[in-house]
C-alpha cells in the first residue's frame, strides 16, 4: 500500500511538469499577437515594442517557459498583462467560486441522478422508467448555454424569482449566495445527473438480478429494505467513484456556464484571458486546474484500493 502511494505521488510531479510544458507550447500556437491586443486600438509602434520587451515576447518559447517555471518554483505564478494584478491573487479569488459552483452542481447531480436511477431500475419498463430515461436523454443532449438562457428567461425575466447573473460569496451572505448559484449549478449538474442516472440504473438492475437479492427476498425481507440496503449498497461503489472523477469534468464545464451567468470563477477567467492572450493567467489557471484533476484521480485510485483489497498487491 505504502509503495503504491509513494509510486503514485512520485508520478504526479513529472505529469504536472509535462502538462505545463504542453500548455505553454500549445498556447504559443494560438494565432494572434498578445502585444497587438495589449496595445489597444491605436497600436503605437513604440508602445508595442515596450510591451514585447516587458513581457519577453521576443524571446524563444523554451526560454520563456524556463523563466516562467523558475517563477512558479519560487511561488510566483506571474502577473496578468491585462489587469496588472498577480495571477496567484486571481487564482485565490476565483478558485473558491468555481469550487462552490462545482460542489453544488455535484449535489444536484447526485440528488437527481441517483434517486432517478434507482426508481427507474426498480420500476423497470413502467412510466417512471420511461420518464427517467427521457430525462436522461434530455440532460445529455441539452447544451448548457441554451438551458442557461432559458432558465434566466423563466426564473429571472418572467417570474422575477432569481437574479439573472452575478455572484455573492458564501461568506458574505449565504442565502444570496445560494440564490445566485442555484441556476448555474443546476445547469452545470444537469448532464452529470443524466450520466449518473444511467449508471445507477444499470448497476441497480445488475444488483437486483443477483443471487443475494433473490436470497434476501426469499427470506421475506421488505422490498424497500432489499432495494436500499442490499442492492443499492453494492451498486453504489462504481457510481460514487464516477461522481468523484466527474467533479474534475464539472470544473471544466464551468467555462460556458460561468460565461452565461456571469459568475466570476475560473471558467470566466480563462475565457477572458484566452481572448486577451493574457498568457500568464491562462498558464496559471491551467496549472492549478490540472493539479486538482490529477489529485482527484489519485484520490479515486486510493478509494478503489480501499474498497477492493485485491488491488493492493
Amino acid at each position: 500500500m505504502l509503495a503504491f502511494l509513494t509510486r503514485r505521488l512520485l508520478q504526479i510531479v513529472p505529469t504536472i511538469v509535462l502538462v505545463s510544458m504542453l500548455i505553454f507550447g500549445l498556447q504559443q500556437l494560438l494565432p494572434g499577437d498578445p502585444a497587438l491586443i495589449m496595445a489597444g486600438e491605436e497600436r503605437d509602434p513604440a508602445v508595442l515594442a515596450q510591451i514585447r520587451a516587458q513581457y519577453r515576447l521576443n524571446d524563444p518559447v523554451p526560454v520563456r517557459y524556463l523563466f516562467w517555471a523558475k517563477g512558479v518554483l519560487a511561488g510566483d505564478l506571474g502577473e496578468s498583462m491585462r489587469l496588472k494584478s498577480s495571477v496567484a491573487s486571481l487564482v485565490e479569488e476565483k478558485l473558491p467560486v468555481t469550487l462552490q459552483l462545482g460542489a453544488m452542481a455535484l449535489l444536484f447531480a447526485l440528488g437527481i441522478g441517483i434517486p432517478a436511477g434507482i426508481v427507474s431500475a426498480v420500476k423497470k419498463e413502467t412510466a417512471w422508467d420511461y420518464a427517467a430515461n427521457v430525462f436522461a436523454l434530455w440532460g445529455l443532449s441539452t447544451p448548457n448555454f441554451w438551458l442557461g438562457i432559458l432558465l434566466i428567461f423563466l426564473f429571472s425575466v418572467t417570474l422575477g424569482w432569481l437574479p439573472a447573473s452575478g455572484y455573492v460569496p458564501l461568506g458574505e451572505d449565504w442565502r444570496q449566495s445560494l440564490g445566485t448559484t442555484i441556476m448555474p449549478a443546476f445547469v452545470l449538474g444537469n448532464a452529470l445527473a443524466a450520466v449518473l442516472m444511467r449508471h445507477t440504473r444499470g448497476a441497480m438492475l445488475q444488483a437486483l438480478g443477483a443471487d443475494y437479492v433473490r436470497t434476501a427476498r426469499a427470506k421475506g425481507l421488505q422490498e424497500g429494505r432489499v432495494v436500499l440496503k442490499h442492492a443499492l449498497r453494492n451498486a453504489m461503489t462504481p457510481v460514487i467513484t464516477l461522481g468523484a472523477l466527474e467533479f474534475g469534468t464539472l470544473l471544466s464545464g464551468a467555462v460556458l456556464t460561468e460565461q452565461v451567468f456571469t459568475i466570476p470563477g475560473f471558467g470566466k477567467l480563462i475565457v477572458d484571458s484566452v481572448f486577451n492572450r493574457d498568457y500568464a493567467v491562462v498558464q496559471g489557471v491551467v496549472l492549478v486546474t490540472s493539479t486538482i484533476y490529477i489529485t482527484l484521480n489519485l484520490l479515486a485510485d486510493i478509494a478503489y484500493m480501499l474498497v477492493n483489497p485485491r488491488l493492493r498487491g
Partner: protein
Amino acid sequence: MTIVLRALLTLLLWAAAIGGASAQSSLRIGLAEDPDVLDPTLARTYVGRIVFASMCDKLFDIDQKMNIVPQLALSHETSQDGKTVTIKLRPGVKFHDGEDFNADAAKYSLERHLTMKGSFRKPEIAAIESIEVVDPLTLRLHLKQPYAPLLAQLTDRSGMMVAPKAAEAAGDKFGLHPVCAGPYKFVERVQQDRIVVEKFADYWNKDKIHIDRITYLPIVDSTVRLANLRSGGLDLIERVLATDIKTVRQDKRLALSKAVSLGYLGLTTNIANGPKADNPLAKDPRVRRALELSIDREALNQVVFNGEFVPGNQWVSPQNPYYQEKFPIPKRDVAKAKALLKEAGVTTPLSLDFMVPNGVELRQVAEVLQSMTAEAGFDLKIRLTEFATSLKQAEEGNFQLYLIGWSGRTDPDGNSYSFQVCNQPLNNGKYCDKEVDAAHQEARAGASQAARKAAYEKVAAKVLNGGGPIIYLYHPQVLVAHTDKLDGYVQMPDGLVRVVGLTLKQ
C-alpha cells in the same frame, strides 16, 4: 421521486424569496466587457472609459454636439502660431484623498502620461514639449509644432487628472486603487465581477450628484445583459444590440437612449501589403469604386440593423461638423459598377479573400455585402476569423478585404490620420499618397474649424469614391437602455455613461 420533487420545489420557492428581496439602493450598470487596469495612463479599453467617467474628471469634456466644454479647466487660449496653449484651471477642486487640484497637480498628471513606462497616452499628447506652471491655477503647454487635435485629446484619458501623492506612492499599481477628482471615489473591484464607487463628498459639482453608489457589472452576453435589465437586476445597460431595440421599446418599464457614435464600420482594402495585394482591387481605383457602387448602404442598415444605424461614406458621420457635404453617400448603381469593372479589364467574377472578425452582427453584414456585390461581378469569399487573430493577419497583409470598424474619436484626426497616412500603425493596407499626407498635416496645424475642414476636403477628394484604402459603410448608434426610474440620462456620441445630474426614483 415525490420527495425529490417536493424538495426541489421548496428549494426553488425559497430561492425565489431571496431573489426578490434585493433592494435598489444604488445604480447598477451592466457593461459589455470587464475593463482593463483602472489607471488613466495605462488603460486602453473603451469599456474602461465608461468607469472612468464617474471617477476621473478631465481638463475638458464634450457636449452632445461634440463641442469642447470645460471640466477641470475653465478656459483655454491657443497662441497665434499655434505652439502655446494656456489653460486656466477650476479653483476649489479636491482629489479623493483630500489633496488639492492645482497647476502643479495638472503638470504632474500630464507628465505622468508623457513619461510613465508603458503609458498609452504618450502618443496622444506627444506634441507637448514642456509644461509650465504660470501660477497655481494657470498651466501653459509648449508644443513641438501646432497640433489642433490636442484639446480633443484632453477630453479623454489624456486629460484625466490623478492625485499626485497617491499616484507617486502606488506607481504602476495605481490602477488597483485609483484616486482622481471625479464625482465618485473608488471603493472596490472584484475582477470580472464588479467595480464599486461611491459619492465623493468634496466633489466640486456635488450639488448635481444624487446617487450614493454605483456598481458596474461586466456581463458579456448581450441577451443576458438585457435579461438582467428586464428582471430588475440592473438599472442601465450599454451596447444594446440593434436587433433588441424592439424588445426594449415594448417594455414599458424601460427607456432607450441613443446617439450617433463617433465610430464607423468600413471595408479596408489591402493596397500594397505583401503578395495578397497583387489583384485588380488593390491596383485599380475603378475596381474599388465599382465595389462601392454595388453596395446599398441603406438596405444594409435595414436588413441587419432594422434601419437604426446611420449609413455613411466618410470617417465622420453626416451629423459631424467635419462631414464633407460635397461627397454625399453614393446611390447603388450596379450597371455603372459592371461598366467600371469592364473598363478596368477585370474578368468576372472577381474572387476576393474577405476577412471578417467573428461575431453575429459582423457576419450578417458580411453576408449582405457578399450578396449585393455578387450582382456586380464580385465573389467575396468570407473568412470568419477570431478578432485577436484578425488583427495580426491584417498587420501581416493576409487579406484582400477586411471588415473592421473603429470606435471613433472626438477629433476627425483620430478617425483618419493613422489609417490614411503612409506607414501609420493602423494603415493595414499600406496605402500611401504624399498629397493625402500633406493635407492631413495641414488639418493638424489648422487654426480654425473652417481651415481644417478645407484641408480635409483635399483628403476626401483623394480617398473617397474608390481612391483610398477604406470604403466606409455606416456609423453605429450608441444604444443604452435603462429603467424608467432613472431620470436625467443623456447619451453622448462618445458612448460614455455620464453620471452627473442623474436621479434614481425608488
